[in-house]
Protein backbone atom coordinates (compact mmCIF):
# COMPACT_ATOMS: atom_id res chain seq x y z
CA UNK A 1 0.00 0.00 0.00
CA UNK A 2 2.64 2.48 1.10
CA UNK A 3 4.93 1.38 -1.69
CA UNK A 4 2.13 1.88 -4.19
CA UNK A 5 1.66 5.37 -2.83
CA UNK A 6 5.36 6.17 -2.92
CA UNK A 7 6.18 4.66 -6.28
CA UNK A 8 3.86 7.09 -8.05
CA UNK A 9 5.58 10.15 -6.58
CA UNK A 10 8.72 9.49 -8.61
CA UNK A 11 6.82 8.47 -11.77
CA UNK A 12 6.69 11.98 -13.21
CA UNK A 13 3.33 11.67 -14.92
CA UNK A 14 -0.34 11.91 -14.08
CA UNK A 15 -2.09 9.19 -12.06
CA UNK A 16 -4.24 8.39 -15.08
CA UNK A 17 -1.15 7.62 -17.18
CA UNK A 18 0.56 5.77 -14.34
CA UNK A 19 -2.59 3.72 -13.83
CA UNK A 20 -2.71 4.48 -10.14
CA UNK A 21 -6.34 4.29 -9.04
CA UNK A 22 -5.50 5.42 -5.54
CA UNK A 23 -3.68 8.55 -6.53
CA UNK A 24 -6.35 9.39 -9.07
CA UNK A 25 -8.94 9.24 -6.30
CA UNK A 26 -6.76 11.43 -4.08
CA UNK A 27 -6.31 13.92 -6.91
CA UNK A 28 -10.04 14.02 -7.60
CA UNK A 29 -10.80 14.63 -3.93
CA UNK A 30 -8.15 17.34 -3.65
CA UNK A 31 -9.32 19.05 -6.83
CA UNK A 32 -12.99 18.96 -5.75
CA UNK A 33 -12.04 20.39 -2.38
CA UNK A 34 -9.79 22.97 -3.99
CA UNK A 35 -12.50 24.12 -6.37
CA UNK A 36 -15.02 24.39 -3.56
CA UNK A 37 -12.54 26.47 -1.58
CA UNK A 38 -11.83 28.57 -4.63
CA UNK A 39 -15.55 29.18 -5.08
CA UNK A 40 -15.80 30.28 -1.45
CA UNK A 41 -12.83 32.58 -1.86
CA UNK A 42 -14.23 33.85 -5.13
CA UNK A 43 -17.54 34.62 -3.46
CA UNK A 44 -15.81 36.81 -0.89
CA UNK A 45 -13.44 38.40 -3.40
CA UNK A 46 -16.23 39.18 -5.84
CA UNK A 47 -18.29 40.94 -3.21
CA UNK A 48 -15.29 42.83 -1.88
CA UNK A 49 -13.79 43.88 -5.20
CA UNK A 50 -17.14 44.74 -6.71
CA UNK A 51 -17.95 46.81 -3.64
CA UNK A 52 -14.64 48.64 -3.84
CA UNK A 53 -15.20 49.35 -7.52
CA UNK A 54 -18.53 50.89 -6.59
CA UNK A 55 -16.83 52.88 -3.78
CA UNK A 56 -18.43 50.74 -1.08
CA UNK A 57 -16.85 48.56 1.54
CA UNK A 58 -18.67 45.28 1.01
CA UNK A 59 -19.03 42.73 3.79
CA UNK A 60 -17.27 44.00 6.92
CA UNK A 61 -19.05 42.51 9.90
CA UNK A 62 -18.90 38.70 9.80
CA UNK A 63 -15.31 38.10 10.69
CA UNK A 64 -12.53 40.59 10.02
CA UNK A 65 -13.27 42.42 6.77
CA UNK A 66 -16.14 39.99 6.18
CA UNK A 67 -13.79 37.02 5.70
CA UNK A 68 -16.30 34.61 7.24
CA UNK A 69 -19.24 35.96 5.24
CA UNK A 70 -19.23 33.14 2.64
CA UNK A 71 -19.30 30.54 5.43
CA UNK A 72 -22.19 32.32 7.10
CA UNK A 73 -24.01 32.44 3.77
CA UNK A 74 -23.34 28.76 3.12
CA UNK A 75 -24.72 27.87 6.54
CA UNK A 76 -27.79 29.99 5.89
CA UNK A 77 -28.37 28.31 2.53
CA UNK A 78 -28.00 24.83 4.03
CA UNK A 79 -30.60 25.38 6.75
CA UNK A 80 -33.05 27.16 4.47
CA UNK A 81 -36.33 25.51 3.63
CA UNK A 82 -36.06 23.34 0.55
CA UNK A 83 -38.94 24.37 -1.68
CA UNK A 84 -40.16 22.49 -4.74
CA UNK A 85 -43.02 24.30 -6.47
CA UNK A 86 -46.27 22.32 -6.52
CA UNK A 87 -46.65 22.43 -10.30
CA UNK A 88 -43.00 21.68 -10.98
CA UNK A 89 -41.81 18.53 -12.67
CA UNK A 90 -40.29 17.10 -9.50
CA UNK A 91 -37.79 14.65 -10.97
CA UNK A 92 -36.37 17.06 -13.54
CA UNK A 93 -36.42 19.86 -11.00
CA UNK A 94 -34.39 17.68 -8.68
CA UNK A 95 -31.97 16.58 -11.39
CA UNK A 96 -31.20 19.97 -12.95
CA UNK A 97 -28.81 21.32 -10.27
CA UNK A 98 -27.13 17.92 -10.04
CA UNK A 99 -26.50 17.84 -13.80
CA UNK A 100 -25.17 21.39 -13.80
CA UNK A 101 -22.84 20.78 -10.87
CA UNK A 102 -21.60 17.42 -12.12
CA UNK A 103 -20.75 18.74 -15.57
CA UNK A 104 -18.98 21.74 -14.10
CA UNK A 105 -16.85 19.54 -11.86
CA UNK A 106 -16.21 16.77 -14.38
CA UNK A 107 -14.38 19.17 -16.70
CA UNK A 108 -11.60 19.43 -14.13
CA UNK A 109 -10.59 15.82 -14.82
CA UNK A 110 -8.30 16.94 -17.63
CA UNK A 111 -7.23 20.37 -16.39
CA UNK A 112 -3.44 20.23 -16.00
CA UNK A 113 -2.36 22.14 -12.91
CA UNK A 114 1.13 20.89 -13.67
CA UNK A 115 2.85 18.19 -15.69
CA UNK A 116 2.04 15.67 -12.97
CA UNK A 117 -0.87 17.52 -11.45
CA UNK A 118 -3.84 16.42 -13.51
CA UNK A 119 -6.11 13.48 -12.90
CA UNK A 120 -5.36 12.13 -16.32
CA UNK A 121 -3.90 13.15 -19.65
CA UNK A 122 -6.65 12.53 -22.14
CA UNK A 123 -5.63 12.65 -25.80
CA UNK A 124 -8.88 14.49 -26.59
CA UNK A 125 -8.61 16.76 -23.54
CA UNK A 126 -9.87 20.02 -25.04
CA UNK A 127 -12.70 18.28 -26.84
CA UNK A 128 -13.67 16.53 -23.61
CA UNK A 129 -13.76 19.81 -21.70
CA UNK A 130 -15.82 21.56 -24.35
CA UNK A 131 -18.21 18.65 -24.68
CA UNK A 132 -18.77 18.22 -20.99
CA UNK A 133 -19.09 21.92 -20.27
CA UNK A 134 -21.65 22.33 -23.05
CA UNK A 135 -23.73 19.64 -21.35
CA UNK A 136 -24.27 22.25 -18.64
CA UNK A 137 -26.75 23.96 -20.97
CA UNK A 138 -28.90 20.87 -20.66
CA UNK A 139 -29.08 21.31 -16.91
CA UNK A 140 -30.04 24.94 -17.32
CA UNK A 141 -32.80 24.10 -19.78
CA UNK A 142 -34.01 21.37 -17.42
CA UNK A 143 -34.11 23.87 -14.56
CA UNK A 144 -35.98 26.43 -16.63
CA UNK A 145 -38.48 23.97 -18.04
CA UNK A 146 -39.23 21.98 -14.90
CA UNK A 147 -39.85 25.08 -12.77
CA UNK A 148 -43.09 25.55 -14.72
CA UNK A 149 -42.83 29.29 -14.39
CA UNK A 150 -42.36 32.18 -16.80
CA UNK A 151 -39.11 33.77 -15.68
CA UNK A 152 -37.13 30.53 -15.47
CA UNK A 153 -38.37 29.47 -18.91
CA UNK A 154 -37.39 32.79 -20.46
CA UNK A 155 -34.01 32.62 -18.75
CA UNK A 156 -33.39 29.09 -19.92
CA UNK A 157 -34.34 29.95 -23.51
CA UNK A 158 -32.04 32.93 -23.54
CA UNK A 159 -29.30 30.91 -21.95
CA UNK A 160 -29.48 28.08 -24.45
CA UNK A 161 -29.58 30.43 -27.44
CA UNK A 162 -26.63 32.36 -26.07
CA UNK A 163 -24.52 29.34 -25.20
CA UNK A 164 -25.14 27.63 -28.51
CA UNK A 165 -24.21 30.69 -30.54
CA UNK A 166 -21.11 31.56 -28.57
CA UNK A 167 -19.85 28.00 -28.57
CA UNK A 168 -19.25 28.32 -32.32
CA UNK A 169 -16.89 31.28 -31.99
CA UNK A 170 -15.27 29.62 -29.00
CA UNK A 171 -14.65 26.43 -30.92
CA UNK A 172 -13.09 28.30 -33.85
CA UNK A 173 -10.72 30.13 -31.50
CA UNK A 174 -9.74 26.84 -29.91
CA UNK A 175 -9.14 25.21 -33.27
CA UNK A 176 -6.73 27.96 -34.25
CA UNK A 177 -4.78 27.35 -31.03
CA UNK A 178 -4.79 23.61 -31.68
CA UNK A 179 -3.43 24.29 -35.20
CA UNK A 180 -0.49 26.09 -33.60
CA UNK A 181 0.45 23.01 -31.59
CA UNK A 182 1.38 21.18 -34.77
CA UNK A 183 3.91 23.78 -35.90
CA UNK A 184 7.14 22.34 -34.58
CA UNK A 185 6.34 18.69 -34.02
CA UNK A 186 4.33 18.26 -37.21
CA UNK A 187 1.42 16.62 -35.43
CA UNK A 188 -1.08 18.66 -33.47
CA UNK A 189 -2.58 17.52 -30.22
CA UNK A 190 -5.83 17.99 -28.33
CA UNK A 191 -4.37 16.85 -25.04
CA UNK A 192 -4.30 19.66 -22.49
CA UNK A 193 -0.84 18.62 -21.29
CA UNK A 194 0.33 18.21 -24.89
CA UNK A 195 -0.77 21.76 -25.73
CA UNK A 196 1.25 23.24 -22.89
CA UNK A 197 4.24 21.12 -23.86
CA UNK A 198 3.91 22.33 -27.45
CA UNK A 199 4.11 25.91 -26.17
CA UNK A 200 7.18 24.91 -24.20
CA UNK A 201 8.76 23.35 -27.29
CA UNK A 202 8.02 26.43 -29.42
CA UNK A 203 9.39 28.68 -26.70
CA UNK A 204 6.38 30.99 -26.75
CA UNK A 205 2.91 31.26 -25.33
CA UNK A 206 0.32 30.95 -28.09
CA UNK A 207 -1.07 34.39 -27.23
CA UNK A 208 2.16 35.87 -28.67
CA UNK A 209 2.41 33.42 -31.57
CA UNK A 210 2.01 35.01 -35.04
CA UNK A 211 1.14 38.31 -33.41
CA UNK A 212 -1.69 39.44 -33.63
CA UNK A 213 -3.27 36.13 -34.70
CA UNK A 214 -2.76 34.33 -31.41
CA UNK A 215 -3.90 37.37 -29.50
CA UNK A 216 -7.04 37.71 -31.66
CA UNK A 217 -7.97 34.08 -31.13
CA UNK A 218 -7.42 34.56 -27.43
CA UNK A 219 -9.59 37.70 -27.45
CA UNK A 220 -12.40 35.89 -29.24
CA UNK A 221 -12.19 33.10 -26.68
CA UNK A 222 -12.00 35.53 -23.77
CA UNK A 223 -15.21 37.24 -24.90
CA UNK A 224 -16.99 34.00 -25.76
CA UNK A 225 -16.13 32.42 -22.44
CA UNK A 226 -17.83 35.23 -20.53
CA UNK A 227 -20.97 34.69 -22.60
CA UNK A 228 -20.60 30.93 -22.13
CA UNK A 229 -20.66 31.26 -18.33
CA UNK A 230 -23.54 33.76 -18.33
CA UNK A 231 -21.58 36.49 -16.63
CA UNK A 232 -21.86 40.25 -16.96
CA UNK A 233 -22.03 41.91 -19.45
CA UNK A 234 -23.64 38.84 -21.05
CA UNK A 235 -25.72 37.84 -18.03
CA UNK A 236 -29.06 38.00 -19.82
CA UNK A 237 -30.24 34.56 -18.65
CA UNK A 238 -30.22 35.76 -15.06
CA UNK A 239 -30.73 39.46 -15.66
CA UNK A 240 -31.92 40.60 -12.27
CA UNK A 241 -33.77 43.64 -13.49
CA UNK A 242 -35.74 41.67 -16.09
CA UNK A 243 -36.02 38.04 -15.10
CA UNK A 244 -35.68 38.04 -11.29
CA UNK A 245 -32.97 35.37 -11.36
CA UNK A 246 -33.51 33.63 -14.69
CA UNK A 247 -33.44 29.86 -14.75
CA UNK A 248 -32.94 29.47 -11.00
CA UNK A 249 -35.77 31.76 -9.90
CA UNK A 250 -37.71 28.92 -8.31
CA UNK A 251 -34.72 27.37 -6.59
CA UNK A 252 -33.82 28.09 -3.01
CA UNK A 253 -31.50 26.89 -0.31
CA UNK A 254 -29.16 24.05 -1.11
CA UNK A 255 -30.30 23.58 -4.71
CA UNK A 256 -29.70 27.22 -5.41
CA UNK A 257 -26.25 27.00 -3.88
CA UNK A 258 -25.49 24.08 -6.22
CA UNK A 259 -26.24 26.37 -9.18
CA UNK A 260 -24.01 28.99 -7.63
CA UNK A 261 -21.23 26.45 -7.15
CA UNK A 262 -21.62 25.22 -10.72
CA UNK A 263 -21.52 28.73 -12.17
CA UNK A 264 -18.26 29.55 -10.44
CA UNK A 265 -16.77 26.13 -11.18
CA UNK A 266 -17.63 26.65 -14.85
CA UNK A 267 -15.93 30.05 -14.74
CA UNK A 268 -12.82 28.39 -13.33
CA UNK A 269 -13.04 25.67 -15.98
CA UNK A 270 -13.21 27.96 -19.00
CA UNK A 271 -10.51 30.18 -17.51
CA UNK A 272 -8.27 27.17 -17.19
CA UNK A 273 -8.92 26.28 -20.84
CA UNK A 274 -7.83 29.81 -21.77
CA UNK A 275 -4.76 29.58 -19.55
CA UNK A 276 -3.79 26.20 -20.97
CA UNK A 277 -4.28 27.13 -24.59
CA UNK A 278 -2.85 30.63 -24.73
CA UNK A 279 -1.07 31.53 -21.52
CA UNK A 280 1.32 28.64 -21.20
CA UNK A 281 -0.55 26.62 -18.60
CA UNK A 282 1.61 25.84 -15.62
CA UNK A 283 4.78 27.41 -17.02
CA UNK A 284 6.26 30.39 -15.25
CA UNK A 285 6.29 33.80 -16.96
CA UNK A 286 9.33 35.14 -18.87
CA UNK A 287 11.10 31.82 -19.55
CA UNK A 288 13.10 33.36 -22.40
CA UNK A 289 13.82 36.83 -21.13
CA UNK A 290 14.68 35.78 -17.58
CA UNK A 291 15.94 32.30 -18.33
CA UNK A 292 18.63 30.21 -16.68
CA UNK A 293 19.05 28.25 -13.48
CA UNK A 294 19.36 31.35 -11.28
CA UNK A 295 16.09 32.78 -12.48
CA UNK A 296 14.43 29.37 -12.17
CA UNK A 297 15.51 29.38 -8.55
CA UNK A 298 14.33 32.95 -8.02
CA UNK A 299 10.93 32.22 -9.55
CA UNK A 300 10.53 29.11 -7.40
CA UNK A 301 10.45 31.39 -4.35
CA UNK A 302 7.54 33.42 -5.70
CA UNK A 303 4.75 31.16 -4.28
CA UNK A 304 6.16 31.42 -0.77
CA UNK A 305 6.80 35.14 -1.17
CA UNK A 306 3.27 35.85 -2.36
CA UNK A 307 1.90 33.99 0.66
CA UNK A 308 4.20 36.04 2.89
CA UNK A 309 2.82 39.21 1.30
CA UNK A 310 -0.74 38.01 1.99
CA UNK A 311 0.22 37.16 5.57
CA UNK A 312 1.78 40.61 5.97
CA UNK A 313 -1.40 42.22 4.66
CA UNK A 314 -3.46 40.25 7.19
CA UNK A 315 -1.17 41.24 10.07
CA UNK A 316 -1.18 44.87 8.95
CA UNK A 317 -4.96 44.72 8.77
CA UNK A 318 -5.03 43.28 12.29
CA UNK A 319 -2.91 46.21 13.50
CA UNK A 320 -5.24 48.69 11.84
CA UNK A 321 -8.48 47.24 13.22
CA UNK A 322 -10.39 49.63 15.50
CA UNK A 323 -9.26 49.08 19.08
CA UNK A 324 -12.54 48.42 20.81
CA UNK A 325 -13.56 45.39 22.88
CA UNK A 326 -16.19 44.21 20.36
CA UNK A 327 -13.58 43.93 17.61
CA UNK A 328 -11.03 42.10 19.72
CA UNK A 329 -11.95 38.58 18.60
CA UNK A 330 -11.89 39.67 14.98
CA UNK A 331 -8.47 41.26 15.39
CA UNK A 332 -7.07 38.12 17.01
CA UNK A 333 -8.70 35.99 14.30
CA UNK A 334 -7.21 38.06 11.51
CA UNK A 335 -3.77 37.88 13.13
CA UNK A 336 -4.10 34.11 13.43
CA UNK A 337 -5.22 33.80 9.80
CA UNK A 338 -2.20 35.87 8.80
CA UNK A 339 0.13 33.65 10.80
CA UNK A 340 -1.44 30.56 9.23
CA UNK A 341 -0.78 31.97 5.76
CA UNK A 342 2.77 32.78 6.82
CA UNK A 343 3.23 29.23 8.07
CA UNK A 344 1.97 27.81 4.77
CA UNK A 345 4.44 30.13 3.05
CA UNK A 346 7.23 28.68 5.21
CA UNK A 347 6.19 25.15 4.24
CA UNK A 348 6.36 26.19 0.58
CA UNK A 349 10.00 27.16 1.10
CA UNK A 350 10.99 23.53 1.70
CA UNK A 351 12.81 22.46 -1.51
CA UNK A 352 10.82 19.27 -2.10
CA UNK A 353 7.49 21.06 -1.69
CA UNK A 354 8.77 24.06 -3.63
CA UNK A 355 9.56 22.03 -6.71
CA UNK A 356 6.24 20.26 -6.66
CA UNK A 357 4.04 23.24 -5.92
CA UNK A 358 5.29 25.96 -8.24
CA UNK A 359 3.59 24.73 -11.42
CA UNK A 360 0.29 24.64 -9.52
CA UNK A 361 1.00 28.14 -8.25
CA UNK A 362 1.57 29.65 -11.68
CA UNK A 363 -1.51 27.95 -13.10
CA UNK A 364 -3.66 29.16 -10.22
CA UNK A 365 -2.19 32.65 -10.46
CA UNK A 366 -3.13 32.87 -14.14
CA UNK A 367 -6.63 31.55 -13.48
CA UNK A 368 -6.95 34.04 -10.62
CA UNK A 369 -6.14 36.82 -13.06
CA UNK A 370 -9.06 35.71 -15.21
CA UNK A 371 -11.30 35.58 -12.16
CA UNK A 372 -10.33 39.17 -11.41
CA UNK A 373 -11.18 40.11 -15.00
CA UNK A 374 -14.62 38.54 -14.55
CA UNK A 375 -15.27 40.72 -11.50
CA UNK A 376 -13.78 43.76 -13.18
CA UNK A 377 -16.09 43.38 -16.19
CA UNK A 378 -19.06 42.90 -13.92
CA UNK A 379 -18.19 46.08 -12.08
CA UNK A 380 -17.84 48.09 -15.28
CA UNK A 381 -19.97 47.05 -18.21
CA UNK A 382 -23.71 47.46 -18.63
CA UNK A 383 -25.65 44.44 -19.83
CA UNK A 384 -26.09 43.82 -23.54
CA UNK A 385 -29.53 43.73 -25.10
CA UNK A 386 -30.45 40.35 -26.53
CA UNK A 387 -30.19 41.38 -30.18
CA UNK A 388 -26.86 43.07 -29.49
CA UNK A 389 -25.66 39.90 -27.84
CA UNK A 390 -26.60 37.83 -30.86
CA UNK A 391 -25.03 40.38 -33.20
CA UNK A 392 -21.75 40.29 -31.30
CA UNK A 393 -21.77 36.53 -31.35
CA UNK A 394 -22.68 35.88 -34.98
CA UNK A 395 -21.58 39.00 -36.84
CA UNK A 396 -18.41 39.90 -34.99
CA UNK A 397 -16.88 36.99 -33.12
CA UNK A 398 -17.71 34.29 -35.64
CA UNK A 399 -16.16 36.08 -38.70
CA UNK A 400 -13.11 37.07 -36.66
CA UNK A 401 -12.73 33.51 -35.43
CA UNK A 402 -13.02 32.11 -38.96
CA UNK A 403 -10.60 34.71 -40.32
CA UNK A 404 -8.07 34.00 -37.58
CA UNK A 405 -8.35 30.28 -38.19
CA UNK A 406 -7.70 30.62 -41.93
CA UNK A 407 -4.92 33.16 -41.41
CA UNK A 408 -3.26 30.91 -38.82
CA UNK A 409 -3.38 28.00 -41.22
CA UNK A 410 -1.87 30.07 -44.03
CA UNK A 411 0.86 31.62 -41.87
CA UNK A 412 1.64 28.25 -40.33
CA UNK A 413 2.01 26.65 -43.75
CA UNK A 414 4.03 29.57 -45.12
CA UNK A 415 7.45 27.80 -45.02
CA UNK A 416 6.06 24.82 -46.96
CA UNK A 417 4.15 27.13 -49.31
CA UNK A 418 7.26 29.12 -50.19
CA UNK A 419 9.24 25.96 -50.87
CA UNK A 420 6.45 24.63 -53.06
CA UNK A 421 6.26 27.96 -54.88
CA UNK A 422 10.03 27.91 -55.34
CA UNK A 423 9.72 24.42 -56.83
CA UNK A 424 6.96 25.57 -59.19
CA UNK A 425 8.87 28.59 -60.47
CA UNK A 426 12.07 26.68 -61.15
Amino acid sequence: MLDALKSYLTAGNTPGEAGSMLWATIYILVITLGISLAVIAMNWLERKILAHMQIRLGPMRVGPHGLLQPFADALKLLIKEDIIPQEADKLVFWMAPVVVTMTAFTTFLVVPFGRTHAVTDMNIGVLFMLGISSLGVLGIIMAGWSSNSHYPLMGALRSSAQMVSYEVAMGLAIVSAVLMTSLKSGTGTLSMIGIVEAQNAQQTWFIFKFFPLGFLAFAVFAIAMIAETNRAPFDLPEAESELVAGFHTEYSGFRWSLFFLAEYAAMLAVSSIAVTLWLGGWMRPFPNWLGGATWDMAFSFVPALSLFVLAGMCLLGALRMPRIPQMRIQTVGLAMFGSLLGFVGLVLLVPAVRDRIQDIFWFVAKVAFFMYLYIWYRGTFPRYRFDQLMRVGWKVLLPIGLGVLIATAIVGLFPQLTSVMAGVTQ
Partner: protein
Amino acid sequence: MSLKPLLRKVFLVDLIKGLKVTFHYQPPSQAITEQYPLERPVIFERFRGQPRLKVDPDKGNSLCIVCNLCALACPEQLIVVKGERNPVTKRKEPVSWTYDLSRCMFCGLCAEACSTDALELTQDYEMALYSREGMVLDQAALERGQEPVRYVK
Protein backbone atom coordinates in the same frame (compact mmCIF):
# COMPACT_ATOMS: atom_id res chain seq x y z
CA MET B 1 -18.98 54.95 -40.70
CA SER B 2 -16.02 57.27 -40.65
CA LEU B 3 -12.63 55.99 -39.67
CA LYS B 4 -12.23 57.36 -36.17
CA PRO B 5 -15.35 55.90 -34.56
CA LEU B 6 -14.67 52.63 -36.36
CA LEU B 7 -11.20 52.43 -34.85
CA ARG B 8 -12.64 53.32 -31.46
CA LYS B 9 -14.99 50.39 -31.78
CA VAL B 10 -12.42 47.93 -33.05
CA PHE B 11 -9.91 48.66 -30.31
CA LEU B 12 -12.66 48.80 -27.63
CA VAL B 13 -11.46 52.25 -26.53
CA ASP B 14 -14.61 53.13 -24.64
CA LEU B 15 -14.72 49.83 -22.79
CA ILE B 16 -11.10 50.22 -21.72
CA LYS B 17 -11.83 53.75 -20.52
CA GLY B 18 -14.64 52.38 -18.38
CA LEU B 19 -12.40 49.65 -17.01
CA LYS B 20 -9.85 52.30 -16.08
CA VAL B 21 -12.42 54.27 -14.13
CA THR B 22 -13.55 51.31 -12.03
CA PHE B 23 -9.95 50.23 -11.50
CA HIS B 24 -9.05 53.56 -9.99
CA TYR B 25 -12.00 53.46 -7.62
CA GLN B 26 -10.63 50.40 -5.89
CA PRO B 27 -8.55 51.62 -2.92
CA PRO B 28 -10.88 51.01 0.06
CA SER B 29 -9.87 54.34 1.55
CA GLN B 30 -12.05 55.96 -1.11
CA ALA B 31 -15.15 54.11 0.03
CA ILE B 32 -17.86 56.43 1.22
CA THR B 33 -19.56 53.78 3.34
CA GLU B 34 -19.85 54.76 6.97
CA GLN B 35 -19.49 51.97 9.52
CA TYR B 36 -22.26 53.47 11.59
CA PRO B 37 -21.87 52.47 15.22
CA LEU B 38 -18.09 52.64 14.87
CA GLU B 39 -17.97 55.80 12.83
CA ARG B 40 -20.46 58.58 13.30
CA PRO B 41 -21.57 61.02 10.66
CA VAL B 42 -20.67 64.70 10.85
CA ILE B 43 -23.82 66.50 11.99
CA PHE B 44 -24.17 70.05 10.85
CA GLU B 45 -25.09 72.88 13.16
CA ARG B 46 -28.46 73.59 11.61
CA PHE B 47 -29.51 69.93 11.68
CA ARG B 48 -32.89 69.56 13.40
CA GLY B 49 -32.86 66.51 15.63
CA GLN B 50 -34.04 65.68 19.11
CA PRO B 51 -35.87 68.54 20.89
CA ARG B 52 -34.38 69.89 24.12
CA LEU B 53 -35.62 72.32 26.71
CA LYS B 54 -32.86 74.53 27.99
CA VAL B 55 -32.21 75.16 31.62
CA ASP B 56 -30.64 78.33 32.96
CA PRO B 57 -27.13 77.17 33.78
CA ASP B 58 -26.75 79.58 36.72
CA LYS B 59 -30.07 79.34 38.48
CA GLY B 60 -31.16 75.88 37.39
CA ASN B 61 -34.69 76.85 36.40
CA SER B 62 -36.27 76.27 33.03
CA LEU B 63 -35.91 79.03 30.46
CA CYS B 64 -39.46 78.35 29.32
CA ILE B 65 -41.94 81.09 30.23
CA VAL B 66 -45.02 79.18 29.02
CA CYS B 67 -45.90 81.71 26.38
CA ASN B 68 -47.47 78.88 24.35
CA LEU B 69 -46.00 80.20 21.09
CA CYS B 70 -44.39 76.86 20.28
CA ALA B 71 -47.68 75.03 20.71
CA LEU B 72 -49.36 77.54 18.42
CA ALA B 73 -46.59 77.32 15.84
CA CYS B 74 -46.60 73.54 15.72
CA PRO B 75 -48.39 72.34 12.56
CA GLU B 76 -48.97 68.95 14.16
CA GLN B 77 -50.12 70.41 17.46
CA LEU B 78 -48.05 67.94 19.38
CA ILE B 79 -46.79 70.36 22.05
CA VAL B 80 -48.95 70.88 25.12
CA VAL B 81 -47.66 73.29 27.76
CA LYS B 82 -49.30 74.19 31.01
CA GLY B 83 -47.83 76.53 33.54
CA GLU B 84 -48.56 78.82 36.44
CA ARG B 85 -47.10 82.03 37.79
CA ASN B 86 -44.49 81.67 40.49
CA PRO B 87 -45.60 84.08 43.23
CA VAL B 88 -42.03 84.83 44.29
CA THR B 89 -40.32 85.55 41.01
CA LYS B 90 -43.50 86.70 39.23
CA ARG B 91 -42.46 84.44 36.35
CA LYS B 92 -44.60 81.89 34.62
CA GLU B 93 -43.08 78.43 35.03
CA PRO B 94 -44.04 75.24 33.21
CA VAL B 95 -46.00 72.70 35.20
CA SER B 96 -46.45 70.07 32.52
CA TRP B 97 -44.75 69.84 29.16
CA THR B 98 -45.47 67.15 26.62
CA TYR B 99 -43.81 66.77 23.28
CA ASP B 100 -45.06 63.88 21.15
CA LEU B 101 -42.00 62.82 19.16
CA SER B 102 -43.92 60.16 17.26
CA ARG B 103 -45.81 62.85 15.37
CA CYS B 104 -42.97 65.33 15.04
CA MET B 105 -41.64 66.06 11.57
CA PHE B 106 -38.74 68.18 12.81
CA CYS B 107 -39.80 71.29 10.92
CA GLY B 108 -38.27 73.44 13.63
CA LEU B 109 -41.11 75.99 13.67
CA CYS B 110 -41.47 75.58 17.45
CA ALA B 111 -37.83 76.38 18.08
CA GLU B 112 -38.12 79.35 15.73
CA ALA B 113 -41.17 80.65 17.55
CA CYS B 114 -39.67 80.32 21.03
CA SER B 115 -39.26 83.79 22.49
CA THR B 116 -36.60 82.84 25.03
CA ASP B 117 -34.70 80.30 22.96
CA ALA B 118 -35.64 77.68 25.52
CA LEU B 119 -36.74 75.06 23.01
CA GLU B 120 -34.14 73.86 20.58
CA LEU B 121 -33.81 71.02 18.08
CA THR B 122 -30.40 69.55 18.80
CA GLN B 123 -28.01 67.52 16.69
CA ASP B 124 -28.87 64.23 18.42
CA TYR B 125 -30.51 61.80 16.06
CA GLU B 126 -30.68 58.44 17.83
CA MET B 127 -34.33 58.50 18.86
CA ALA B 128 -35.47 55.00 17.95
CA LEU B 129 -37.46 53.26 20.67
CA TYR B 130 -39.13 49.90 21.15
CA SER B 131 -42.60 51.34 21.85
CA ARG B 132 -44.61 54.41 20.98
CA GLU B 133 -45.29 55.23 24.63
CA GLY B 134 -41.77 56.39 25.25
CA MET B 135 -42.11 58.81 22.35
CA VAL B 136 -44.13 61.28 24.37
CA LEU B 137 -41.51 63.31 26.17
CA ASP B 138 -42.21 65.19 29.39
CA GLN B 139 -40.32 68.14 30.77
CA ALA B 140 -37.73 66.05 32.58
CA ALA B 141 -37.00 64.01 29.43
CA LEU B 142 -36.81 67.12 27.32
CA GLU B 143 -34.35 68.75 29.71
CA ARG B 144 -32.28 65.64 30.21
CA GLY B 145 -32.29 64.58 26.61
CA GLN B 146 -33.39 61.12 25.64
CA GLU B 147 -30.79 58.41 25.96
CA PRO B 148 -30.49 56.23 22.87
CA VAL B 149 -31.55 52.62 23.45
CA ARG B 150 -28.42 50.52 23.31
CA TYR B 151 -28.53 47.13 21.65
CA VAL B 152 -27.21 44.60 24.13
CA LYS B 153 -26.55 41.00 23.19
